[in-house]
C-alpha cells in the first residue's frame, strides 16, 4: 500500500527523534537509548544517575499525550496480539535489550551514528530476527 502521507509523518517524526537524541548528547552527554535509560532507572547502580532517567521516561509519555491532544488522534489503535503473547514478547524484549545492551533507539539511532560496530551487528541482528519472526507468525502460523 502506497501511503506517502504516513511516510512523510514517519520522516518528520524521525527527524524529531534524531533531534531529541542529539540534544541529550549535546547538552547532557548521554545516549538516548530507551532500553538503557529504562534499565538504568529500574536497577540503577549509581544513585544520582536515576533521576534524569525517570524524567526522560515521564517526558516520553507526556510527549505522546501532547501529540494525542494536538493531532486529535490516538497514538495506538490496536494491539494485534493476545495477552499471553504480549507478555511473552515483553519478557523477550526486556531480557534481550539488556543482554544485547540496546534497542532500536540505542543501537539503531545512536549507535549507528557513532559508527559503532557492536550497534551495526546488533541492529542487523534484531532486524533479521524481527523479519523472520513476522514471517513465521504471519505466513507459516497464520497469525498469533
Amino acid at each position, binding site marked *: *500500500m502506497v501511503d506517502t502521507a*504516513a*511516510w*512523510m*509523518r*514517519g520522516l*518528520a*517524526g*524521525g*527527524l*524529531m527523534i*534524531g*533531534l531529541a*537524541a542529539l540534544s541529550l*548528547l549535546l*547538552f*547532557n*552527554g*548521554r545516549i*538516548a537509548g530507551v532500553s538503557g535509560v529504562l*534499565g538504568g532507572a*529500574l536497577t540503577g547502580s549509581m544513585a544520582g544517575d536515576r533521576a*534524569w532517567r525517570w*524524567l526522560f521516561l515521564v517526558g516520553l*509519555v*507526556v*510527549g*505522546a*499525550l*501532547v*501529540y*494525542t491532544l494536538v493531532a486529535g488522534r490516538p*497514538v*495506538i489503535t490496536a*494491539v*494485534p*496480539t493476545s*495477552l499471553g503473547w*504480549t507478555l*511473552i*514478547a515483553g*519478557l*523477550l*524484549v*526486556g*531480557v*534481550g*535489550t*539488556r*543482554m544485547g*545492551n540496546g534497542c*532500536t533507539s540505542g543501537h539503531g*539511532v*545512536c549507535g549507528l551514528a557513532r559508527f559503532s560496530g557492536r550497534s551495526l*551487528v546488533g541492529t542487523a541482528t*534484531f532486524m533479521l*530476527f524481527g523479519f523472520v*519472526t*513476522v*514471517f513465521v507468525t504471519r505466513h507459516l502460523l497464520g497469525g498469533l
Partner: protein
Amino acid sequence: MRALIAVLVGMLFGFGLSLSGMTEPLRVLGFLDLAGQWDPTLGFVMGGALMVTLPGFWLARRRGRPILDSGFQLPTRRDLDRRLIIGTGLFGIGWGIAGFCPGPAIASLSSGLPMVLAFAAAMAVGMLVHDRLLNR
C-alpha cells in the same frame, strides 16, 4: 538544568515517536512483514533520525564535552560477543511478535490501554530478571 533537558528531550522523543506512527504495532509489523504488504514507514523514521544524528553526533563530540556536563558517557566496548548476538536476537523475536520496542511501548502508556501496560510491565520484569539473575 540537566533535569529540564531530560524532560524536554523525552517529550520531543515521545512526540516524534507518536507522529512517526511507530507507537502503532501494526505499522511496525507491516515493516517487518517482507512477504506481505510491505510498509516502509519505519525506514523513513530511521532515515530521518539518522539524518540528524549522523552529522550531529560527530559535531557534538568535536566539542570535547557536553554543554552541561564534564564529559560524554558513551559505550566503550568494541568486542562482538555472544551476549550481543543472543540479546539482540531475543529482542528481535519479541519485537516481531508484538510490534513493540521499548520507546514506543513507554510512549504508548499514554493511551491507558491495559495491553500496553501489560507489555511494559513484562518488559520491566524481563529487564530486572536479566540484571539480577542472568547478568553472568
